[in-house]
């Protein structure tokens, strides 16, 4: 199997760039083809990049607390744009205020994210889960894009 492509970015008006650079280096080293959109990425920019590169997964980061507002409707938007099967991860400090991880995970799972991560989670474990989740899903049908 070719290296799976993943789209990486920090959503909304968030400019936290340090973790994004570490994730980029880490997932590259793990053999993924990383399309890193950097900070301040809109839902549509994530989806455009995923469609253009035939990505198997979108990894959304949010550190500044507005994750709840910024991620609203993300899964629906993916489906609307034809990405029914894409693996959708979210991680960071996703809500305003100290909230139990379980409550945050439940909220974002209900929003359609496949997995929810927190700042001090183990990256090695995340990479293993990502490989499994990508393998478990059929790839998107290849669609011709108009020139």
């Amino acid at each position: 199997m070719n290296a799976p492509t993943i789209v990486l970015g920090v959503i909304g008006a968030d400019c936290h760039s340090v973790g994004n650079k570490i994730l980029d280096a880490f997932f590259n080293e793990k053999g993924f083809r990383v399309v890193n959109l950097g900070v301040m990425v809109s839902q549509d920019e994530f989806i455009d990049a995923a469609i253009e590169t035939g990505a198997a997964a979108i990894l959304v980061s949010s550190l500044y607390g507005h994750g709840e507002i910024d991620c609203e409707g993300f899964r629906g938007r993916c489906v609307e744009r034809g990405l029914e099967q894409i693996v959708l991860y979210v991680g960071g400090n996703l809500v305003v205020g100290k909230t139990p991880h379980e409550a945050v995970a439940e909220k974002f799972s209900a929003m359609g994210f496949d997995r929810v991560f927190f700042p001090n989670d183990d990256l090695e474990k995340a990479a293993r889960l990502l490989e499994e989740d990508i393998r478990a899903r059929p790839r998107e049908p290849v669609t011709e894009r108009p020139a």
Partner: protein
Amino acid sequence: MRDKKMPLAQLLAARPAVLSSWPTGAEVDLDEAFAWQAKIPAAKRFSTAMRAARDARRVLTQPRAGVALIDEHIRLLKYLETEGEADLLPTTIDAYTRQNRYEEAARGIEKSVNAGTSLLNGFPAVNHGVAGCRRVTDAVSRPVQVRHGTPDARLLAEITLAGGFTSFEGGGISYNIPYTKNVPLAKSLQDWKYVDRLCGLYEERGFPINREPFGPLTGTLVPPCIGHAVAILEGLLALEQGVRSITLGYGQGGNMAQDIAAIATLRELADEYFQDAGFSGYELSIVFHQWMGGFPEDESRAFSIICWGAAVAALSGADKVIVKTPHEAMGIPTKEANAQGLRASRQTVDMLADQPRIETPQVLREKEIIRREVDCLLPRVLALGSGDTAAGAAAAFEAGILDVPFAPSVHTRGKILPMRDNEGCIRIFNPGAVPLDDDIAALHREKLAERARAEGRSVSFQMVTDDIYAVSKGRLVGRPR
């Protein structure tokens, strides 16, 4: 000395377009704003508090704090004033407002009303307008500062200064490079010239506005010379526009000797460069930011970092310390957690108040290194601008002479690669195009080689990753597992 101040007519001509960029801009009337500022008692003026702290050699405490709604924000600040014993208060602005996305801020306000809790990470001051800001600044008894991260803060400055705030954080470099993706430096520097000129105008009319460039930049392994160069440049830019009260900042690195040396040299070098440029009569103070990197979730461990930062602030002779909270690993703190961080800092700072500054041989050595480095950078930056400080700064970033590590902006090269040495000092492995003298660059490499030998591995990006995670995992230096 050439007068670089923006002509008043130019500022006045630029104002209508700024004020019409959101409906609340229409509330700003400069003469009425001056009349409002005239009613602010001296005890609530930021510049007065900073000068008094400097004279009394006290370290003032200040939190970060801001929520979506006015009443809730007032309750928060009053709590930090009474229960947190904060000397100075903030109003931290939400991230949508920082990017001039006022429609989204409005949506955040509405959602916060419906949710019964703040869904914004700060106070949307532009949306709340002049009257809303005045309710906040009027309700508290301490000086209040606008803290944010806004590349184009012209409207925010207009509204908050008219709204009774007496200090404004940021600058054309420090609120661009670490805070956004693709705003050209020439643009943010021009917009901040407007902000500085507006502050200078208030100063001329007898209402000093304290200005505080954001020292820590990306808050991640930033070598002291880089932060200092940017801080001094932004200090010069503010002075050129008529600002008199300036607070320069530095974010805790973690090695005590290097941190103490950084605070001492920031004050000394700023004075030297300001005076070389012909300025006098300004009031300079120094702020120390407690650890800006990742925190552990364990609140006891977080308190340890907070108090260590407070201790170094006191022992280095800083005038103000910006305080973190035990909720740092989890994002925006509750008001209770914020007050806890303040009280923990207060206890440490006060216990150290009568103890002398620390000046060991190691501190003196680090001071010498930082001085040499800043003197490698700043004269070149200023020469590049041929008398135009802002042009010099923009050209220096373009050429890579100034470079900020781990920044989101495409307008810094991001080639500089720092990491910790075996004692935890921040050193530069690869300076990119930053023109350090050969002997200084060699010293950095030798220090890192020493760590590599001690750890039995070669110097690599893995060390940087390990360093970035180290504090949240309980250490300063990211040793191999």
